[in-house]
């Protein structure tokens, strides 16, 4: 259910993992490579992961969701390697009996990915490149484990 891959992600494949008779709603989040961020043009992105730990942390997010939304089933696939504009970086699929929970649990998953999953992106611009860190503008890393940070 939790996968890091260097191959293109098929939305249908991730979604199929959470389909079940009890579910009436599935919400997908699909993160794609955006061309402009604050006016700056991105040419491509490079994602690097610590795969063993990243899959473990994704599973932890699924467990956290299970605690908060017991009826939810979650599947997450994140891609690594070089991605072009509009390529899919991540697909999160959450199924629930009723739709409110699917939206909420899905949004929780993407927030947590940005906090605790060891994946890094390097932006390639027209005039250079840079590894992006701390995109949540949190500088609390030295104060504790990110695993303990709960979204507000």
């Amino acid at each position, binding site marked *: 259910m939790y996968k890091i891959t260097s191959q293109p992600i098929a939305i249908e494949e991730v979604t199929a993992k959470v389909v079940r008779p009890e579910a009436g709603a599935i919400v997908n989040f699909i*993160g794609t490579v955006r061309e402009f961020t604050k006016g700056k043009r991105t040419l491509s992105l490079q994602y690097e992961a610590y795969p063993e730990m990243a899959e473990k942390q994704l599973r932890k997010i699924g467990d956290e969701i299970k605690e908060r939304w017991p009826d939810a089933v979650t599947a997450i696939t994140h891609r690594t390697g070089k991605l072009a504009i509009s390529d899919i970086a991540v697909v999160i699929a959450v199924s629930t009996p009723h739709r409110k929970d699917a939206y909420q649990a899905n949004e929780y998953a993407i927030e947590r990915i940005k906090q605790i*999953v060891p994946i890094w992106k390097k932006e390639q611009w027209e005039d250079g490149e840079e590894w992006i860190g701390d*995109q949540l503008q949190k500088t609390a890393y030295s104060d*504790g484990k990110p695993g303990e940070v709960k979204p507000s």
Partner: protein
Amino acid sequence: MIHVQCFAHLKEQTGQDTITIEQSSLSVADLLAELSARFSIETDSLMVAINEEYASPEDIVSEGDRVALIPPVSGG
């Protein structure tokens, strides 16, 4: 000996995928202090993972553990 995996810009800054520490056991805080001295890297924002779990400064890293430096993440 302890092997410490590096990712993202750390790999470029240290010039290594894996850093070797010539000790059999030390705290996470001491590990970061040693790396900061050896590679002049900023360790304030670095987390350390032991066996794929985030560790606290007082946790002990021992020979045989899978150890990694985790800079602020930017996936998603």
